[in-house]
């Protein structure tokens, strides 16, 4: 036993150092080099810029939309909402009164906007990350009348935009139907400048 311990010391210490260099420094740095060379946009966060070159978001990460003129985001538990430095779910269990109260308040808000019928589940629930970039098409469609009226567009035009912006599952089963909110809301702004398009 004592002999086994002594014989293990040199390999244990030296292998720790060697593997630290290989796996802890060499591997991530090499991958950073390859990533930056092959896929510079993705490797730096899939940043989206406006026409002036200003960074307005990431194509994959959600940001808060609260205005009536935009498709609004899901509730978020990341910081004060969509905090990119504090990703979090609500972690509320199925029987938490706080959850029922929150959903109830959000549901009342949607009813006040004139939404009738069953509410799409994603619209009133907090995502896992608090940074969900998407909505289901159903949750986007129930917001159409509000947006159309706020922007003076026809409902059918806004509804057509949802259909255009809906991504479908790969091969029919990998993924869910979804609408990226940054993309569709940018399109809304573009429509706004040419309402007769």
């Amino acid at each position: 036993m004592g002999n086994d311990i002594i014989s293990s010391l040199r390999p244990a210490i030296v292998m720790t150092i060697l593997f630290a260099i290989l796996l802890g420094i060499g591997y991530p740095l090499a991958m950073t080099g390859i990533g930056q060379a092959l896929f510079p946009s993705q490797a730096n966060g899939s940043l989206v810029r406006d026409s002036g070159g200003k960074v307005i978001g990431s194509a994959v990460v959600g940001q808060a939309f609260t205005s009536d003129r935009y498709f609004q985001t899901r509730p978020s538990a990341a910081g004060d909402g969509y905090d990119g430095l504090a990703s979090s779910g609500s972690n509320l269990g199925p029987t938490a009164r706080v959850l029922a109260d929150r959903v109830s308040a959000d549901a009342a808000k949607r009813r006040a906007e004139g939404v009738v019928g069953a509410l799409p589940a994603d619209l009133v629930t907090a995502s896992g990350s608090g940074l969900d970039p998407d909505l289901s098409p159903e949750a986007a469609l129930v917001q159409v009348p509000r947006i159309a009226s706020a922007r003076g567009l026809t409902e059918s035009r806004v509804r057509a935009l949802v259909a255009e912006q809906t991504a479908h599952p790969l091969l029919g089963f990998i993924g869910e139907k979804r609408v990226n909110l940054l993309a569709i809301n940018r399109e809304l702004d573009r429509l706004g400048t040419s309402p007769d398009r």
Partner: protein
Amino acid sequence: MTLQGWILIIAFTGILLALTKPIGLWLFALYEGRRTPLHAVLGPVEAGFYKLAGIDPAAEQGWRRYAVHMLIFNFVLMLFTYGILRLQGVLPGNPQGLAGLGEHLSFNTAISFTTNTNWQSYGGESTMSNLSQMLGLAIHNFLSAATGIALAFALFRGFARRSAATIGNFWADATRITLYLLLPLCILLTIVYIANGVPQTLAGTVDVSTLEGARQTLAIGPVASQEAIKLLGTNGGGFFNVNSAHPFENPNAITNLVQMLSIFVIGFGLTWTFGKAVGNTRQGWAILSAMLILFLAGVTITYWQEAAGNPILHQLGVAGGNMEGKEVRFGIAASSLFSVITTAASCGAVNAMHDSFTAIGGMVPLINMQLGEVVVGGVGAGIYGFLLFAILAVFVAGLMVGRTPEYVGKKIEAKEVKLAVLAIATLPLLILGLTALASVTDAGLAGPLNKGPHGFSEMLYAFTSATANNGSAFAGLTANTPFYNGLLGTAMWLGRFFIIVPMLAIAGSLAAKTYTPESAGSFPTTGGLWVGLLVGIILILGGLTFLPSLALGPVADHLAMIHGQTF
């Protein structure tokens, strides 16, 4: 439940079954120490490592030496990470300007990553610098995985060798697995992840002015390289607080499918390698069949419950399944599937918040861990844990027919059965003992976010996850306290090595035995009867112990949920 969801589940399983033999063959080459095509590139690295460390890879070790060298290596690695975390504030690679971690959080985290648990009492983006992520944590993701697979190889040799005094060389096993299996696959996976939108940069944050004119700062970093090994090595420690639910860790359904496949692929392959090592691949398929039965049963229950949704929210006019804590791009099917995979394996990565699952949907991940994560299981740890149950199963079968039990040509005697029971008893002792302690102390009761039975579930889940070296959480629990960091850290260490040491002793004992050829009186360990017996033994021995605690937590929570009771 939808047809689309089931097609995903079936396609996922089908892809893995197709990969089982190829990966198993590759693992078998490493098990035997054969030359692979990759030796042309990495062979000199391997030889150089041995030379500098004074290792003779051909020097065979008995089970005691194998165990001691593995333990000391893991201990040194743990100290290394503890040091990096404590010194984070003065080390480079810290564009975020984060301070060093405190004692109890460093203790907990160093053990957590050493034991392949990757329980995280902290939120990654607000705690860990890029250097700590790469050098302090990712190194364990490789080496704890390599340790697990090496240990499985050692046990395979116990079954396969005859009248032998040794079970291999730990250093050769761990180095070969890292260099010829984990590293090359991770390089491929990293490139796939980056192409799909996972960042890989040395920057720390990006500032954004949103479409509505607000400021948003996004945490970023060398995420993709971390992500690849996080899943392939069944580690599960996320770069960000919310793990694979974060769009930068898991941006779309393709990365999600690749992540789910990564978690299981080595575990599937190892069942084949075991069969090959003991001279009959049907032995491996029998094990995999039993695992698949338990896995698909778990997926069915969780998917069914999550798709059925929460009646309390239905009352408020909300349609459909349970989306609290889930991402739109994954939906209910892929979130349910991921949760069962990650807990069946000892991964612990999550793409949805298990705490917000329905009561029964969240109970399946809990049970998966309490069974000892033998349903496919962590890389290496799953198959050696499973073989402990197999030893008990042949013992029970032997009692029924009144013969000395045999398994794959080795007589299973009192010594092996005692050691197997010792290893398996570690789980209930630690999980139930520590949950009970937390339930009656102020420091323990300060932890849960949720009230009522769900609060108890949060504590039970934490000690289950730590002891079983999973690392997923009912994350509402506030675990970054001296009480939880200390106890969970201890549970992780004991839960890993109190199973490994008896398991290696079994390997040593079996290796020394002669071969017992199968006779007409032998209990067959390949057919349907054997698979059924395995499933039964795992459920009865592994599961029954925990039934009372499950009744207090998820079952009570479920009854409250269906009656509309909130807390």
